[in-house]
């Protein structure tokens, strides 16, 4: 009996101390969305349960190792106890109710993270190897950064252009895959202003999966509107010139996920000082990057492979001749 009392006290003590320890360290990143609230609450509940269960099993075990260890010279067996049906039933039924309860709470919790706000702002998210594009159909703008007004629900309608990706901002908690051939949805209500968040692709999608990130910026409503106005102005201004339209196309199609514009490395060759230069091809030979070559490279990337780069990486694009000309005009500005 004394053993049970001691162990009982120890279990509680260990459980409480472990929980407090974990709680002080802090386990989750800052919660920055309305969806993070219920999730963190449930997580905390689970940590309580788990620390308790851990103590409940490990403490008696370790206690026995010390108290009931075999003394030197003792070769006899321990007491013959085969089992106890009541006990077995108890430790079947109690966990059963615990998990049923947890599942019930979990379902409620899930519903809470999915609560619909009819005024939600729609953002169309496109994922591709290896970048993100965000369209704001209400405002007619496209961006490679996700700007969100604080405290307004965003309804993300997500599509993938090639393989499966997954939208995840750790501070927002919730996550959703982008599946080619269908539109998946996710609702997020940012609650904390900040510009250090990032969308981090959470489903392996090939060589540069690690770098498939995009900045997320949560701002006040006013600042958001200012940003929208600025983008709209830029877009309409850019629409006047070929290189402006080219830049818009490059943004919308995520070319810069693979091509840098400043000479730095990447999955594809840089565009810096590309136009007119001599490009070495894999398998020997070179070619001058004139308009014809650039056009071919965009419409049929497999036709000529630049030395040191992988064939198969760059997808073929379906642009009109005009669009290609715009893109080439843009590439030519990169000197």
């Amino acid at each position, binding site marked *: 009996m004394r053993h049970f009392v001691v162990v009982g006290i120890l279990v509680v003590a260990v459980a409480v101390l472990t929980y407090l320890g974990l709680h002080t360290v802090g*386990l989750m990143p800052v919660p920055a969305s309305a969806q993070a609230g219920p999730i963190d609450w*449930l997580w905390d509940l689970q940590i309580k*349960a788990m620390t308790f269960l851990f103590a409940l099993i490990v403490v008696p075990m370790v206690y026995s190792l010390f108290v009931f260890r075999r003394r030197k010279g003792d070769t006899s067996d321990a007491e013959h106890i*085969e*089992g106890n049906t009541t006990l077995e039933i108890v430790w079947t039924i109690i966990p059963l109710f615990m998990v049923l309860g947890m599942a019930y709470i979990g379902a409620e919790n899930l519903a809470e993270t999915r609560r619909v706000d009819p005024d939600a702002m729609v953002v169309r998210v496109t994922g591709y190897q290896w970048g993100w594009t965000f369209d704001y159909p209400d405002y007619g703008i496209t961006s490679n950064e996700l700007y969100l007004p604080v405290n307004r629900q965003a309804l993300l309608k997500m599509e993938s252009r090639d393989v499966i990706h997954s939208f995840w901002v750790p501070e927002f908690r919730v996550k959703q895959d982008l599946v080619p051939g269908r539109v998946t949805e996710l609702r997020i209500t940012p609650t904390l202003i900040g510009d250090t968040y990032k969308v981090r692709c959470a489903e392996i999608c090939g060589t540069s999966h690690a770098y498939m990130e995009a900045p997320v910026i949560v701002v006040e409503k006013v600042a958001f509107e200012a940003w929208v106005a600025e983008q709209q102005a830029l877009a309409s201004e850019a629409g006047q010139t070929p290189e402006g339209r080219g830049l818009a196309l490059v943004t919308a199609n995520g070319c810069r996920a693979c091509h840098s514009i400043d000479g730095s490395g990447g999955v594809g060759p840089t565009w810096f000082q590309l136009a007119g230069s001599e490009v070495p091809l894999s398998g020997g030979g070179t070619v001058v990057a004139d308009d014809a070559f650039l056009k071919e490279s965009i419409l049929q990337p497999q036709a000529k492979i630049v030395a040191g780069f992988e064939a198969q990486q760059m997808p073929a694009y379906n642009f009109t001749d005009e669009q290609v000309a715009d893109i080439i005009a843009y590439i030519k500005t990169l000197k």
Partner: protein
Amino acid sequence: MERKYTVGSGLLFLLIAGVIGYFIGLGIDALIMKSVRWTAPVPSAFALLFAFTAFFFGVYGYRGITRGLVYQVVWTLIGGFIVTGIRAARGLSVFSGFFFTEPAWVFGALAGAVAFLFGVGVMDDWVKWARGIDTPEHHEDEPGWEKYLGVSLDHKVIGIQYTITALFLIAVGGTFALIFRTELAASGLQFLNVDMSLFGQNGPQLYNTLMSLHGMIMIVSILLGISGIINYAVPLLLGAQDMAFPRLNAFAYWVSVPASVLLLMSLVLGGFDTGWTGYPPLSAKAPVGQQMFFLGVFVAGWSSILGALNVIATVLRMRARGMTSMRLPIFVWASIATSIIALTATQLIGLSFQLVMFQRLFGMGFFDPAKGGNPVLFQHLFWFYSHPAVYVFVLPGLGVISELLPVFVRKPLFGYRWVAMSSLGIALVGFLVWAHHMFASGMNEYLRVPFMYSTLLVAVPTGVKFFSWVATIWNGKISTPTPMLFVLGAIVVFLMGGLSGPPNATVSVDLHLHDTYFIVGHFHDTIFGGFVFPFFAAIYYWFPKATGRRMNEFWGKVHFWLMTPSFLILTFGMMRVGLLGMRRRIADYDPALGFDFTHLILTICAFAIALSVLIFIVNLFHSIKHGEKAEGNVWNSRSPEWQVPSPMPSHNYEQPFEVVGEPYDYGLPGSKYVEFIPARGGKH
């Protein structure tokens, strides 16, 4: 056989043949590609296969495994050239950057795997039977260690073959882990950078290949490891002379060898970057290595299926007299539960991979949305196996825990029936939970909550095991030699892993945890607790039975005390960074997250684990010859195999036994589990 074969000559052969193979490959490659490509796939592939084969030639001569490997290499090439010839005749492309085209590689690899089986000799008896020729029931093995390199029908030999192969794969997969862990030690790309190129891959891609292969090679090693323990122990525990189908047993082992070769070939043939799960559409686009990976898993799957079939048949048909279902050793119950899953569900991973293979080869659009396919369907088929598979990994391990605890606690297993039935419970409920890997996948929304319920239910039978173990230990007379240390370690580590399961199972929380290092921590804990620790426990425990000697206690304890804390830090650290935003399967992480220091610690722990495993491997091989003699009932166990002297004679028990009592009645004076039936003279 006059020549003396040694490991030394094998290593010499390995080196020479590796170099020769490399240059032959280089020459062929240069001939066809018209440029010398030092790091191209073909020279490396040739070097690998030549070296491998030559090593076994050096230690064993041209028979058994050596002949199998030669057949495999030759037929891979023949198969490849056949398809290449057909393609040439039909005016299709003939060679690619990986030498053969993809269909040629696939067909060649399959032909090679089949040829291996004929070469090694497991098919001999069956071929004879098909031609109407009878064969003797048993073949006598050659004495000494050489029998392990050829076909043997003895379940003990096969068990040891499995175990050694599993250890070899753990070393390979672990070495891959060490490589990519080193890359992860700091943010930024250290040596796996974009400028490097090996086997037709650049650094980040090589990271993906190594990471994916680490996962699958380790999983195959688990499947072989449990087969090893089950094969060795189950017939002994049942009092059987052998498994029900000895030839099938040998076959199941030997298919795993070409399967492992195929997995390794995927590394040199351009690799693949999908992780072990191989989700399309990514896997439909990856290089040929993906196909080798699929084929390797497919072939290894047959090992698992046929092994499981054999186990169930053996338990149903080969028990000693009096061994009723409630008197089965508990490990046997665990083996049955595992085998039920492996027998049935394994077909689904084979099918799902096969469908992707066909999608790539024939353009059949099962998972291609552009052709009306459905990428999520793949995930359902895949996880229908791969979730139950995780219980395949752990149930035998949990069985080992339940089997060994009473011996070292000197008390009966608390609640035998409940523990036995909980294995079946886990196995059966385990079939209904697969979609918990897909909460964020975009599958039908209404499936999420039911799968949350079913997943959480698994905690109940697992809990029964834990509570029964604690009750067994309670008030026992506990001694802690090395096997018992690993049993205790297994309980703690598996508990950590198990308890990190329910948060994943609750949908909303999983939306945060999914595809992060929290999951990586979760499954390393469950796998180490449920397989690796019990596997080591089992080896330490049954080693004297197999060899008549003990493994060194001191180094065993060093192994344990080095591995356990490092491992706990490793997985705690993984869970911590995972919660804070560390995604899985990334070669590089954002320095802004501030994980550099934690990752450095994790890498150091990984090396500490590797060191401990190295110590174990040295101890194992050293003790075979030099261990302390132990021919009696070393652990003072009631189990039948310990009632006869070690090492076990080749046809097991000289006299059959009859079960006369309960298996775990420690502390009941005068009770006995088995009684040997006096020989009636003559051999049966």
